[in-house]
């Protein structure tokens, strides 16, 4: 059983310089209260792994605007001009990764695989400097696993064991990131007593989750 904590308590666990996996796609399925608490505590030098940097006013975009990030590993920054400006100014390191490769790299990190062998990116800038592997006469790009010090997840519903359910397009990277970090913090919209969620509805087993955020007041 886990005791639910407040956003500022959770943000205090996360040191400057940490590598964070943060769920969400254009801010949908992102842990907004955790992000606000990180901005509030003035976090610095974070490396943020996320599908996209959303917009300046939303989701991970807020951390970029606040200057909390040293580096982002992401597939898309097109709707956040602040990310692009900081990148062109040299104030922020941006590693652009194809979306399907990004989620598989995180999965590989979480499930103990040595890398991802994909066709995606072969012959493009995304393959620059990366090794390839020939298998039975076919060439595959070898992409390396990604793990975080922390995973910050949004969930639809949790129980106090930490089991998580997700809703509709708010799943996105959350279930995969739950497997790939040293410490996993989940921000559910709702928390129910243990035993209320059917085992078949659980998408992230509670054994993967270290901390739960209390419901919004």
């Amino acid at each position, binding site marked *: 059983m886990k005791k639910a904590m407040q956003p500022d308590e959770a943000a205090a666990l996360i040191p400057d310089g940490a590598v964070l996996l943060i769920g969400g796609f254009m801010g949908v399925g992102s842990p907004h209260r955790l992000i606000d608490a990180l901005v509030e505590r003035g976090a610095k030098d974070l490396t943020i792994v996320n599908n996209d940097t959303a917009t300046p006013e939303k989701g991970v975009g807020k951390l970029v605007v606040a200057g909390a990030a040293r580096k982002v590993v992401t597939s898309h*920054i097109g709707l956040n001009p602040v990310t692009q400006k900081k990148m062109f100014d040299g104030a922020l390191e941006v590693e*652009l990764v194809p979306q399907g490769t990004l989620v598989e790299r995180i999965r590989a990190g979480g499930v103990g695989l040595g890398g991802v062998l994909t*066709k*995606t990116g072969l012959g493009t*800038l995304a393959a620059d400097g990366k090794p390839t592997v020939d298998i039975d006469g076919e060439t595959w790009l070898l992409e390396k696993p990604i793990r975080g010090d922390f995973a910050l997840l949004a969930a639809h519903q949790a129980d106090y064991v930490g089991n998580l359910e997700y809703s509709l397009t708010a*799943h996105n990277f959350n279930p995969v990131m739950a497997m790939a970090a040293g410490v996993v913090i989940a921000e559910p919209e709702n928390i129910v007593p243990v035993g209320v969620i059917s085992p078949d509805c659980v998408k992230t087993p509670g054994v993967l989750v270290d901390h739960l955020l209390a419901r919004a007041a």
Partner: protein
Amino acid sequence: MDAKEIIARRVAAEIEPGTLVNLGIGLPSMVANYLPENAHVFFQAENGVVGLGARPPEGMEDPNLTDAGGGFVTAVPGAASIDSAMSFGLIRGGHLDMTVLGGLQVDAKGRLANWIIPGKMAPGMGGAMDLVTGARRVIVAMLHTQKGSPKIVPDCTLPVTALRRVDLVVTELAVIEPTDAGLVLRERGPGVTVEDIKNATAAPLIAEHVPPEMRHLI
């Protein structure tokens, strides 16, 4: 009919019943508006749903149900929520029958560039590299020119999205099929001559006879 509507209507005619289709954001997403009723098509939004539906009525939006552009959508009966691993498993694994994507350039080899203008604009590839690499059929839906400059060029000067040759390019002026022999002009836009198309295209076009005007634009 404006240029974008011509493109969207023509691409809609390429979509087969019973298939799984991914529409890129912007112009490609307009294609869904021109499908017949009961088209029995499932649209995938790569952010997490198979069975994307229309925009919900005002006030009935769910913040947890959006398309890949972040706009509110609905889910059709029989829809399925998918996480990003499943979503790109469908794309990369060959389960996606078709993707329709926008383009900055297409070249004589049928290669697409649509994710970065180095030093100027770097939106990132998002899911585009996986889509072009993995979808069974890739259709590029784009305006024929950008501020008068041809977007169909001998060799992409912008970084390509994948080495894979796309299957069809649909613009307001032409339907073009990249083949081993080069870019074959299959159809002309409404009221457009082959000469008009060649003048707006920087890459060589193969047109052995005068191709018909676009089908299915009613």
